[in-house]
């Protein structure tokens, strides 16, 4: 209870800050809509082409949106030495990791849940279903599990905006592949049993990398 109370305090603080600045959710949402519009030009508004490319477009958009929002995850902590302020609080380093991860997960899910209906509307391909929501949640947990770890690394490097995608993208390749494949099947109206192996890969990725990041996060923020 103590643990989750502190985690919630971090999430609460980040949310208040976000409501005030709108640096992540609102800005990244604008970006995702622009991405969708640009992809529409890339497909020359050809309906058949769009339909076959829909899962790819959706996940390319979400992956880049993930990179953008994760890039901002530790910026507030780096200003005025706040990360050190957190490190002298009587909490284990895991609380910081889980707190930052839950915040990113919350922000990303809001962005994605708003993007799905817009995508449906603009492309005339229905991407709203229970299956797709399950895929989005599983894949996003995977994104933020490694993304939070890498964001804490990238913030300490030169050219951090560039470093995060270089670290993040190769590692999340299995998530992207699985999410695209599973979304394709879901859009085609296949039953859950067809999605099973992809969802299983997503789930194992989540479990493995939450555990692993949880174990090594303290090494990233300590010298």
């Amino acid at each position, binding site marked *: 209870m103590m643990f989750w109370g502190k985690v919630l305090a971090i999430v609460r603080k980040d949310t208040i800050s976000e409501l005030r600045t709108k640096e992540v959710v609102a800005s990244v949402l604008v970006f995702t809509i622009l991405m969708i519009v640009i992809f529409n030009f890339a497909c020359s508004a050809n309906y058949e082409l769009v339909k076959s490319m829909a899962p790819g477009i959706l996940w390319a958009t979400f992956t880049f949106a993930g990179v953008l929002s994760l890039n901002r995850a530790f910026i507030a902590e780096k200003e005025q030495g706040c990360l050190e302020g957190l490190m002298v609080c009587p909490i284990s380093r895991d609380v910081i990791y889980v707190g930052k991860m839950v915040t990113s997960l919350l922000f990303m899910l809001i962005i994605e849940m708003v993007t799905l209906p817009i995508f449906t509307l603009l492309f005339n391909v229905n991407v709203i279903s229970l299956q797709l929501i399950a895929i989005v949640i599983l894949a996003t947990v995977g994104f933020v599990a490694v993304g939070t*770890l890498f964001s804490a690394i990238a913030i300490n*490097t030169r050219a951090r905006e560039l470093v995060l995608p*270089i670290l993040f993208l*190769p*590692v999340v390749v*299995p998530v992207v*592949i699985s999410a695209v494949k599973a979304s394709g099947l879901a859009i085609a109206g296949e039953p859950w049993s067809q999605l099973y192996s992809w969802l299983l*890969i997503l789930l194992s990725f989540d479990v493995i990398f939450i555990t692993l*990041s949880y174990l090594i996060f303290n090494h990233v923020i300590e010298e």
Partner: protein
Amino acid sequence: MNRKRNTVRNIFLGISSILMILTLYMIFLYVPVEKEMGIVQKIFYLMVPMGWLALLSFLIVFIGSILYLINKDSKWDVLAHSSASIGILFTALALLIGAIWAKPVWGVWWTWEARLTATLVLFMLYVAYFMVRSFTADEARGATFAAVIGIVGFIDIPIIALATTLWRGMHPGGIIFAGGLAPSMLLTLITSLIAFTFFYSLLLMQQISLKNNENRLKKLQQYLN
């Protein structure tokens, strides 16, 4: 101490040289030409060891990274870093040889075949390992960050392999081992694998001693300043 190390290295140099010559003999003179693919199939005896070393190097990076994070002893970072610099070379060679193989077999230089795709991702992981190190101002922190990539990347490899395989709708072992391998081919492959593994060990020893000397110089420099 140094002399002892040199002796070990010379022994490894000798063994790898002999094994390399033996491998060449077996590939070009001993093993028969494959029926369907012809002479092109001989690339296989080079391609498999490259892929193996790409993975073996990352395994050593992984082990070195874990030990470095646990006890922060820079000798483990030296091990991981050295293995990574050899590994990235072999991964690049694996991709290159893969492309040379792909051209006659599939008619294109590059195909998103599962294993090739996974190797490409592995290459990107190696790039990330070096990138994060060179973009971190503080050397010790760079080593820590690289170790994190070494661990996360290695754990990711089986998942990447699984995802790319399912993605192409293939099953591992499909093309190369279809119909099994003739005993003489298997023997040649194993010899080649052993030869290249010795070669890798030799390079690793060389690289580690180079890095150690570099660090000793840096320490001296710091002391003099």
